[in-house]
């Protein structure tokens, strides 16, 4: 809406009222200022300096894997289980203890035609 001459005249006539109003800013009472400052300090204490901070960065692959498996406790359990597996593999005797003599009699060759090429004359 463009201003007509009449609108301009009216604006000029009102300007002294506006000018006075601009000069007369109400005094904020000491009580109000104290209340506002108290709120500010309480908010700072609660927020602890950006405690409500920005959103966390997106997880990388390793982070997503860790989270998918159930976090650090699950990862620790997985590590222990892995190490136990390695130890069992290395410490296993040539024949399994407790395997009764003659137990091989119960073995069934499910593919008699299949000969494994193991090489080396074995």
């Amino acid at each position: 809406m463009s201003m007509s001459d009449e609108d301009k005249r009216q604006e000029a006539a009102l300007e002294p009222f506006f000018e006075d109003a601009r000069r007369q800013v109400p005094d904020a009472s000491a009580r109000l200022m104290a209340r506002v400052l108290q709120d500010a300090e309480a908010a700072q204490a609660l927020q602890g300096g950006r405690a409500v901070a920005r959103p966390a960065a997106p997880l990388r692959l390793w982070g997503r894997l860790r989270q998918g498996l159930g976090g650090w406790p699950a990862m620790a359990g997985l590590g222990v289980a892995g190490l136990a597996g390695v130890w069992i593999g290395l410490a296993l005797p040539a024949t399994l203890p407790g395997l009764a003599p003659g137990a091989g009699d119960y073995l069934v060759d499910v593919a008699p035609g299949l000969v494994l090429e193991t090489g080396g004359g074995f």
Partner: protein
Amino acid sequence: MPLDAHDDLSDEDLLDAFARGDRAAARALTLRLTPRVLAHAARLLGNRAEAEDVAQEAMLRLWRQAPRWRAGEARVTTWLYRVVANLCIDRQRRLRRGPVALDAVPEPPDPAPAAPARMQDRARAEALQAALAGLPARQRQAVVLRHIEGCANPEIAAIMETTVEAVESLTTRGRRALFAALAARKEELGYVDE
């Protein structure tokens, strides 16, 4: 950091310092912004006591917003004017009563007996406030932002969440209504045409 060290900082920088736990920034922002927020609320509501409550609530919302404030997105005052206007609208809806002109007039800065000039200032302020109170809420908000707070039209459009054209229309209609209410009182209030 001493309080004077904050005088040169923008509102946005102060708010950033506030969010990092700077207590002097909290004081500087309180001193700088509370009177402005109070004045704006008083002009929109026409009631000093209600305006104080609105000012405190608006500042509280600013403190809570501080950690999430994104630099460069908006000016702090633009955001505050919008919050104040929304709070005033809520309050007026709740109270279901019109603005009261007299309470909005600023108190004299000292308790000295009112000199004639001061009485005239007060009469002028009351006359303007009464005329503003007669305007529809959006016109009053636009006129106050433009002519008393000194905001430019694009900023007013951002505060009022409307277009610059709509702001121009609101201020023009508001001024016409104010002129109709005040022109006859110019002489009585001591304004002399040059």
